[in-house]
C-alpha cells in the first residue's frame, strides 16, 4: 500500500515545481470548503459537546440560552452512579459479543469460499451481497417480523423443532432476548463486508505457500496459523478495528428496535447518552456520557490509531 502511494506521489513533484512558482496558496483554497465542512459540522459539535459537559445545561438553558460553568459536576454524577457502570459493562459485552462473532463467522466463511465449486461460491457471495445491501431500517423491520410472538416464523420453527415453550413467546418483552436478537441482527448485517474483504485478501496469497506448508506436513489449523493469518494480519487488524468502531457506536439498530429497552437491557453508551438528553433534558449529563464514550473508544482503538498515524506519517 505504501509502495503504491510513493509511486503516485513522485510524478506529482513535476507539477509541484510549477505550482510553487504560481504561488503556493491554491492548494489551501482547494481544501478550504472541505475544511469548512469539517470545522462546522464535526469539530464544532464535538467541541460544543465537551463544553456542555462542563456546564449546567438543561431544558431552561436550551430555551433561554446561556449556561453556567459546572466544573466536573456532570462527570462526577455520571461516574458516581451505578447505572453508568452497568451501561459501560453492557457496551463492552455488546461490542465483544458482536465483534467476536463477526470475526469468527467471517473468517470461517472466507476460508470456506475457495473450496466451494464455482456455482456454489457465486451463490453464497451473491447471497451475502444481498444481506449487505439491506438497509438498516429494512433489516430492523424484518427482524421484528421474524421474531413476532404469534405469527413470527422463528417461533413457529422453534415449536416445530420441539421447543414448545416458544409458542407465542414475546421476544421483545425480555431484556436478554432483545439483546440476543440485536446481536444476531448486527452480526447478520456485518458478516458480508468482513467475509468478502477477507476472501479478497485470501485470493492474493500465492498457492505455492500453501503447498509448501502442506509438504512440510502442516495440518489445516497450522496452515491457517502459520501462513494465512500472518500474511493477512494487517487486514484482520483493520477489519477488527472497523467493526469495533461500528459496533461500539451502533445506534440506529438499537433505537429502532428497542430504544434501549426493555428496562434498559439494550442501552449501550450512545443510546444511553441520547436517552438522557432526549427524555430527561439532561443535555449536560448526556454530553458528559458522550465525551466519556469517545474517550473509551479511543482507548480501545489506540493500537489501530497508532498504526494509522505511523503509516500516514511515514
Amino acid at each position, binding site marked *: 500500500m505504501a509502495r503504491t502511494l510513493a509511486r503516485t506521489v513522485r510524478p506529482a*513533484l513535476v507539477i509541484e515545481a510549477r505550482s510553487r512558482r504560481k504561488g503556493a496558496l491554491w492548494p489551501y483554497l482547494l481544501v478550504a470548503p472541505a475544511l469548512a465542512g469539517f470545522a462546522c459540522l464535526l469539530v464544532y459539535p464535538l467541541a460544543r459537546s465537551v463544553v456542555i459537559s462542563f456546564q449546567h445545561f438543561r431544558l431552561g438553558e436550551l430555551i433561554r440560552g446561556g449556561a453556567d460553568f459546572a466544573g466536573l459536576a456532570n462527570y462526577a454524577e455520571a461516574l458516581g452512579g451505578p447505572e453508568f457502570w452497568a451501561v459501560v459493562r453492557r457496551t463492552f459485552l455488546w461490542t465483544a459479543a458482536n465483534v467476536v462473532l463477526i470475526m469468527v463467522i467471517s473468517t470461517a466463511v472466507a476460508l470456506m469460499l475457495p473450496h466451494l465449486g464455482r456455482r456454489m461460491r457465486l451463490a453464497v457471495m451473491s447471497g451475502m451481497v444481498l444481506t449487505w445491501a439491506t438497509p438498516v431500517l429494512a433489516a430492523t423491520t424484518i427482524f421484528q*417480523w421474524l421474531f413476532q410472538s404469534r*405469527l413470527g416464523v422463528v417461533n413457529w420453527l422453534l415449536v416445530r423443532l420441539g421447543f414448545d415453550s416458544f409458542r407465542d413467546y414475546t421476544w421483545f418483552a425480555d431484556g436478554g432476548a432483545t439483546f440476543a436478537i440485536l446481536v444476531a441482527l448486527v452480526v447478520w448485517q456485518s458478516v458480508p463486508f468482513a467475509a468478502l474483504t477477507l476472501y479478497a485478501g485470501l485470493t492474493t496469497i500465492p498457492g505455492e505457500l500453501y503447498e509448501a506448508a502442506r509438504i512440510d506436513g502442516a495440518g489445516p489449523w497450522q496452515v491457517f496459523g502459520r501462513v494465512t493469518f500472518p500474511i493477512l494480519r494487517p487486514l484482520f487488524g483493520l477489519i477488527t478495528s472497523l467493526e469495533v468502531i461500528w459496533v461500539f457506536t451502533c445506534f440506529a439498530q438499537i433505537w429502532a428496535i428497542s430504544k434501549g429497552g426493555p428496562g434498559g437491557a439494550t442501552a449501550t453508551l450512545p443510546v444511553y447518552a441520547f436517552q438522557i438528553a432526549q427524555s430527561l433534558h439532561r443535555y449536560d449529563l448526556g454530553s458528559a456520557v458522550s465525551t466519556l464514550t469517545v474517550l473509551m473508544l479511543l482507548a480501545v482503538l489506540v493500537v489501530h490509531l497508532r498504526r494509522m498515524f505511523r503509516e500516514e506519517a511515514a
Partner: protein
Amino acid sequence: MKRAALNLAALGVLAVSVFPVYWMVITAFKPTVDILTETPAFWPARPTLDHFATAVRAAGFWTFWRNSLAVTAGAVLLALVVALPSAFAVARLRWAGRRGFILMVFVAQTAPWSALLVPVYIIARDADMLDRLPTLTLVYFVTTLPFTIVTLRGFIAAVPPELEEAALMDGCGRAEAFRRVVLPLLAPGLMSTSLFGFITAWNEFAFANALMIKDQGDRTLPIWLSGFSNVFGTDWGATMAAATLFMLPVLLVFLVLQRRVSSGMIAGAVKG
C-alpha cells in the same frame, strides 16, 4: 464426504443470508389470510399486490419518498463538489499540512457520529434549523465527505499525471487541463463514489430521528419505516411491502456497483 459437509455449510450460510430478505418479499406478496396463519407458507400460492397498494396509499408516502430523495441527492452532490478539489490537492499537489489534512480525513471517517447527536441537535435548535430538510442534507454531506475524499483521491492518483502535463504543455491552464483530461477519466470513479454516498445517506436514521421531530412533512423514509406500527398497526403485509419499496433503490445501486462494492469499502478504510 468432506465435500458434502462443505456444501452443506455453504447452503447454511446462503440460507441465513437470504432468508430474512426472502421472507420480507414473500410476506409482502401474500394475501392477509395467508399471513395471519399459524403455519406459515414458504411460497406465495396466491400472490397479490394489495399490500403494495396499501403502502403507497399510506399518508405521506410520496412526501417521505421525495424528502429522502431530495436530501440524499443534495448531500451526495454537495459532497462531490467539495471533495473533488480536496482530493485533487491531496493526490497531485505538495503542500505543507497535506499529511495533517489526510490524517484529519481518516479520523473524520471513523468519527463516532452517534456521539454527536446531542450537540448537533442543540446547534440546529439554536440556529433555528430543526425540522428542516437542509439541516439533514448538511449532516449527510459531512458524514459522506471523508469517504468521498479518500475514494476520489485514489481515482485521481490512478490517472497518469503525464496526461495532464501534456495538456499543460499544449497551453491549457490547470483548470482546463483538469476539466478536459482528468475529469472524463474520473467519470466511473465519480459514479461509484456518489452511489456509495447515496446508500449511506438513504439509510441514515439516527440524525433524521433526532433532528426531524415535530413536522410529519419533513420525515424521511427510514423514520417513516421505524414507526411502521403507528402507520400500519399490525398489518405486516403492508409493513413488509413498505420495507421492500424502501430497499429497492439500494438494491439497484448494489447491482450497478457489483464487484466494486468490496474494493470501494476497503478504499474508504485504507488509503487509496
